[in-house]
């Protein structure tokens, strides 16, 4: 076991942690904005999956990373548009809508992939994976350099988004209004401001972040698309928001915890320790349940009071 703790291995595990945390951070931040606006978007998994597929198509068709990212963001926004339309305009039960989105994404991505890409008897199509972009000078700092500053652009974006989202939510008027929606939307309505307009904005901005998260799952990490490639990361993002007590900084920490676990199991598998790998694969999900139980025992929750509750004006 001593092998586990050499410098190179520690660095590689920590670097992998940051890498693996990328989509979790992005998706959880996106979900945070939506939930702060009072919309419980359980469709994160599906939103990420559609975006992952869109990014794959974009990269495959154009070869341009930028186009791929753009498509992923658009896909994320389109999916979250459905979510917010159903939730804010039609006032459909948000849990059911979110689930419907996941099922839609699973079915659609599978069908479209099989219809257009997985042609029988041919090799699976591949795209170029985003390259690592070391930041000049910073990446040469011992330890920190290879861990923090030798990552892909999307990873830098994700880390940067943590303070950005915090600033947005707590230091701008839009953030103030969005947080107000999650707590008492009537306070917005009685000021003559549109509740649903703001919810559309919040959920779709969140969808854009989920889109980036999805893009990282395909073009950020894998040359191929496989069905259900997001493999529960969207659901973990939802857990992360809870474990983070609806705070951006908490999201960073919680995402890193999950990612570290994953990075560690990759490392352990890599050096061939004899243990059933299924245990490690199941660990994040068990940890998620444990975290939620622990969270429930903590004091004052920051959970938005009106999360998941549709707003009616009360006009009889």
């Amino acid at each position, binding site marked *: 076991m001593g092998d586990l703790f050499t410098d190179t291995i520690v660095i590689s595990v920590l670097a992998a942690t940051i890498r693996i945390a990328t989509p979790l951070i992005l998706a959880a931040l996106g979900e945070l904005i939506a939930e702060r606006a009072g919309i419980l978007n*359980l469709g994160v998994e599906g939103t990420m999956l559609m975006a992952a597929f869109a990014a794959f198509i974009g990269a495959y068709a154009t070869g341009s990373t930028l186009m791929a990212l753009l498509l992923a963001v658009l896909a994320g926004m389109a999916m979250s548009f*459905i979510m917010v339309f*159903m939730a804010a*305009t*039609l*006032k*459909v039960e948000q*849990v*059911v*809508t979110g*689930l*419907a*989105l996941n*099922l*839609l994404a*699973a*079915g*659609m991505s*599978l*069908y*479209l992939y*099989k*219809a*257009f890409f*997985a042609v029988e008897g041919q090799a699976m199509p591949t795209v170029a994976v985003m390259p690592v972009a070391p930041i000049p000078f910073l990446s040469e700092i011992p330890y920190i350099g290879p861990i923090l500053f030798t990552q892909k652009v999307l990873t830098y974006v994700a880390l940067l988004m943590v303070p950005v989202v915090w600033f947005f939510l707590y230091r701008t008027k839009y953030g103030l209004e969005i947080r107000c929606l999650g707590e008492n939307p009537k306070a917005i309505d009685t000021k003559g401001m549109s509740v649903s307009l703001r919810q559309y904005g919040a959920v779709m901005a969140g969808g854009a972040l989920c889109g980036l998260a999805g893009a990282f799952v395909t073009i950020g990490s894998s040359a191929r698309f496989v069905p259900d490639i997001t493999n*529960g990361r969207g*659901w973990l993002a*939802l*857990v992360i928001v*809870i474990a983070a007590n609806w705070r951006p900084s908490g999201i960073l920490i919680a995402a890193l915890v999950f990612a570290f676990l994953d990075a560690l199991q990759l490392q352990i598998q890599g050096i061939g320790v004899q243990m*059933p790998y*299924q*245990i490690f*694969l*199941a660990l994040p*999900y*068990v940890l*998620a*349940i444990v975290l*939620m*139980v622990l969270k*429930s*025992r903590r004091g004052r929750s920051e959970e938005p009071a009106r999360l998941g509750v549709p707003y*009616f004006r009360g*006009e009889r």
Partner: protein
Amino acid sequence: MGLRLEPRLAPSARWQAVSVAVALLAALAVSALLLESAGTDVGVAFAAILDGAFGGLRTTAKTLAKATPMILTGLAITVAFRAKVWNIGAEGQLFAGAMASYWLYTLTGPALGMALLPLLFAAGFVGGGLYGGLAGWLRSAFRVNEVLTTVMLNYVILYLLSFLLVGPWRDQSSFYQQSERIDRAAWLPDLWAPGKLHLGFLVAILAAVAIHVVMNRSWFGYEVKAVGLNARAARFKGINVERTAVAVMVLSGGLAGLAGMIQVFGVNHRLESDISLGFGFTGIIIAVLAMLRPGWVVFVAILFGGFENGGIKMQVATGAPSAIVSAIEAITLLFFLTAAALTRFRIVWRST
């Protein structure tokens, strides 16, 4: 100002029917577009689906067999959603039931013959029920969101299954992750062998009848619905909301577990991850489309069973991937939710 929705005082039955029909047509239209975009002949495809679903007695029987697990998962979701307990874990509970019944089988072997069947059913129900009950308990005791726990538990049990199938329950003669084949003596008896229709279908129908009675005629169902509609008032009037939620999850998980047992002993005749084609998730769509009514669950599940089988036929006939079926199902759900919402509101065009 544009489009605005106002709640209707009384949803009219006529509009409800019309909007559901419109939703189905819209879903069909979108599916046609999807097929068309991939260069598939839509007419041929739809005809193949219909033919593969209900074209002849034997295919219809196969459709009923296919629908069997979906009836049960649909009922599982129905029970849970009625209490507004969002059980997304029917898939995991199905596997829990399958594993519990298979475990019992590994202990007893086929020697008991037909006498074993009731025990296997019981094991399936208990296995799924305990796994569902776990999520229910976490919800009631710790106020942990059951959507997330059930999703997490879905993943956990699949990895557990995978562990067992490469470990203690592995079929040594096979390359795949699967158990050994179950002895014919322990198979579910056929109702009609040519259509591969087995006893499980009858069990599912009986379950639907039972759930109908429980939900609409018993005080337990009365309490479940009261908890779902207004948990506060229910609590104030002496209904134990926490205990009801756990009971609902046990019943819901048990129904899903039955589906798992039936798949193992009636269809696949071995334990493997292929016993479910996402039936736990399809059950959600079925239950919602059936407006959480057990009778309608049977109807919609049979329709979906037809879809699934018809999809395979369509793939053979046109080359279009049968995955279109799950896309159609999800699209139907979204349109249905929209339509159902519209019946609850009046659309009002407001000028500024």
